[in-house]
């Protein structure tokens, strides 16, 4: 038991992060879970090493079925979800999944018994009806797509709940399983159900593979697609049919409220990593499959964790990581780029201020840092970090505490910045007819992005200027 302590701690950490329960008493540290739980005891009961090994190594037949089924489901939903997401039909899946409930209830009432395939046929019928209802409502002038989705979702679900209420009073015992479709009940999955999901996954993947070009055309530019001879309505219909298929086979595992998450989240997460549709589809499938795998494994390991919800949380985790960490579109990368840009801007501002001061004090002069602080409204802290950065880059030297000198390479850079700044100012004054007192601010922003090509063009426009022109509005540090 102690040998598995590390592994269990890691697992515990992962789940604690995911679930973020304010768990006061970590039961995993104290060993045996107690049987009588008090009302304040919100800890999770951690599995014994034996359970862990059995689940992770697939020794348990039931677990094997559930884990394989949900993994395949996640992959299929990821693939078709990519296209639904790009076609902006993702929330249509929500209306669709809620609309399956009356079908399940009607099938149950008509047949009087639970037979999964027939219940799913019922679900498909009303689900498709729901989709058509959304499309129909959208054509009414005052009803927008979001309202249409909300209406179908709530009214169809209401019909389903009414029928479930009737069923509850009709019989006893049998109907208990029906509510499993609402929140999902992966533990009830049989081998046949996993096979059904497998077949559906193959159909979905094959369909998307065969129609990849058509799907791509319809997702990105329906008008263009129809002009090159793609039958947009037919392609949309097939796409929606595949969404219906995925939703219906996934009802039992994930539940109709949360199945839409599997369609949206992996696709939205994959979008952060790539601009290539093929890559995005593959990534989305992988994300979906991973969510399915980890979600069902966690819920097999820990008691009282609803599988569907854990799968969705895993997908949410993947989404959060993607949104943070993705190299180009991720938040961290974006804020790093932003930070680097600001640092570079500050560095260039510092150098230009020094070049302006050298104009007053003479080249190579020792510039007191107090004067520099006066040049721009810099806080002492900001100024210190800018100076440190400039010294690291070898642009300045600091012989005494409060005195700064430019190095030769720093001076060259600084004078180039100053020249660019003044060129732009002169250009604005002469060609854009802007008052000399108003050009400084604009040039302040533009100087950092002037490429060599643009500087050369500016030089061609302002042929009389050589070297660093004097400031057209009087030096800032002098004012």
């Amino acid at each position, binding site marked *: 038991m102690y040998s598995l302590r590390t592994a269990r701690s890691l697992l515990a950490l992962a789940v604690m992060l995911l679930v973020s329960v304010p768990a006061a008493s970590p039961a995993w540290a104290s060993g045996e879970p107690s049987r009588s739980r008090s009302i304040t005891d919100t800890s999770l009961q951690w599995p014994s090493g034996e359970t862990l090994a059995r689940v992770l190594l697939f020794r348990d037949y039931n677990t094997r079925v559930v884990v394989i089924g949900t993994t395949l489901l996640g992959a299929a939903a990821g693939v078709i979800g990519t296209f639904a997401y790009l076609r902006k039909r993702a929330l249509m899946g929500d209306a669709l999944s809620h609309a399956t409930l009356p079908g399940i209830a009607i099938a149950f009432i008509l047949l009087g018994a639970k037979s999964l395939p027939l219940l799913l046929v019922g679900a498909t019928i009303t689900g498709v009806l729901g989709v058509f209802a959304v499309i129909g409502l959208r054509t009414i002038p005052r009803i927008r797509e979001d309202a249409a989705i909300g209406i179908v979702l709530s009214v169809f679900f*209401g019909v389903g709940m009414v029928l479930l209420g009737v069923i509850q009073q009709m019989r006893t015992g049998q109907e208990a399983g029906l509510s499993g479709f609402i929140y999902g009940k992966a533990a009830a999955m049989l081998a046949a159900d996993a096979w059904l999901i497998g077949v559906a996954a193959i159909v979905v993947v094959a369909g998307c593979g065969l129609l990849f070009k058509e799907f791509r055309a319809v997702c990105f530019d329906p008008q263009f697609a129809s002009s090159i001879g793609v039958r947009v309505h037919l392609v949309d219909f097939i796409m929606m049919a595949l969404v219906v298929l995925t939703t219906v086979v996934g009802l039992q595992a994930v539940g109709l409220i949360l199945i839409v*998450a599997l369609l949206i989240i992996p696709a939205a997460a994959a979008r952060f990593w790539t601009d290539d549709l093929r890559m995005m589809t593959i990534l989305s499938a992988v994300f979906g499959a991973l969510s399915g795998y980890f979600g069902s494994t966690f819920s097999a390991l820990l008691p009282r964790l609803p599988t569907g919800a854990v799968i969705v949380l895993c997908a949410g985790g993947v989404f959060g990581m993607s949104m943070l960490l993705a190299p180009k579109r991720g938040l961290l990368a974006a804020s790093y780029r932003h930070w680097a840009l600001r640092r570079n801007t500050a560095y260039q501002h510092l150098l230009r201020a020094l070049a302006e001061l050298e104009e007053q004090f003479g080249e190579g002069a020792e510039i007191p840092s107090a004067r520099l602080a006066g040049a721009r409204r810099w806080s002492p802290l900001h100024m210190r970090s800018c100076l440190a950065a400039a010294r690291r880059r070898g642009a300045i030297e600091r012989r005494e505490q409060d005195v700064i000198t430019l190095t030769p390479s720093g001076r060259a850079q600084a004078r180039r910045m100053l020249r660019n700044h003044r060129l732009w100012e002169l250009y604005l004054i002469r060609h854009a007819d802007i008052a000399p007192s108003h050009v400084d601010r604009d040039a302040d922003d533009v100087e950092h992005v002037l490429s060599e090509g643009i500087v050369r063009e500016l030089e061609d426009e302002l042929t009389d200027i050589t070297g660093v022109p004097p400031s057209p509005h009087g030096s800032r540090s002098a004012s």
Partner: protein
Amino acid sequence: MTGWQWDIDGWIVLAGILSAVSCALLGNYLVLRRMSLMGDAISHAVLPGLAIAFLISHSRSSVPMFVGAVSAGLLTAVLSQTVHRYGKVEHGAAMGVVFSVLFALGLILIRQAADHVDLDPGCVLYGNINQIPLDAIGSALPPPILNLGIVLLVNVAFIALFYKEMKISTFDPQLATTVGIPADLMHYALMVLVSVTTVANFESVGSILVIAMLIVPGVTAHLLTDRLGAMIAVSIIVAVFSAVVGHVFAAFGPAWIGLPGSTHTSAMMAVVAGGLLLIAVLLAPRHGVISRAWHRLILSLNIIRDDVLSLLLRWQEVRPEGGRPIRQAEVLAAIGDSPLTRWSLRTLVRSGYVMLDRTGRGDDADGMKLTASGLSRATGLIRSHRLWEAYIDKHFKLPTSHLHLSAERVEHYITSEMRDEMSADLTSPQHDPHGRAIPPEQGEG
């Protein structure tokens, strides 16, 4: 349940009315602001707020639940805005991501606590409105009714106090900002109220009814009226009707069709509201399916009648001296034989524009001729057609063969004033670009 009992059914209907009306009031603004799904998202996402509040405070008293749910509701609004703006995820999908993850979190937390608490996931969906009468035993006012009543009062007060501000910031946020109304604040105030309303309704009527009542009455009212005040009034009527009829159907409906017992009142309220919306979709005076279909039918009937009249005139034109009248079969063949065409022929005869000429024999037995008034209308049409062709030919460089189609479409909508203007512009032309004579304007026939 045998019959209506005021001490049971009365309380249930009252709870239903209070919750439906408080949702419907806010729903109007959600629908107008195209934020219908925000109601959906918030009502899913308050679940983890409730659960966390319970886990922290270990009680089901109102205040922690209220705080938890409102912060969860606001979190949903803020998070989906963040995902949308910084993640560049499409708005609906961003909401989908946020609310499904939060709902999953809430579900897990509730299951963790469910062993010992009556915070049952099933209740979350359809509530336990039928429990309310039990709460009424021993107290004058059951607590759920009190909560719902307070929420309704708050919503009414908010809308009454900020009616103008909400109206402007709903229809024109830029204008609102320029006249000094904080549109963002209004947005978040609405979100807070939606969260509060959702929480108060959670226990008694469940989240499905909240979603239905936030969206359906507003949309129904929007179909029926163009004025905000009237829209709010209609939505309240829809909400009250749904509550009353919904409970009656839920309590007694199963018995009417020979089934035992009753079913969930709140779910049935959603269904009744959906039924009302369906009726509005079909029957709404301007935007309804039936009225639009009727207008389209009348329009196409008028176009066919015009086509028939100009056909008869053209037939006469090429046969100036007598000649046989056109046969009905030829008219049908030229216009396209359909029940609509036959009907329009009958109305033309009945309203005296066309007369049937039965003097001929054999194939000529049912010839058709223009009457004087028919001739006048047909002349107007032909004049419109040919003037339009001449006008287009003068001002646009189109090939002569392309003129006819445009004139064919437009001729039905050209008034005699427009004809006069075109004629003046073209200095009273005698012939159209194809060389056919443009008939002179006739007196009103």
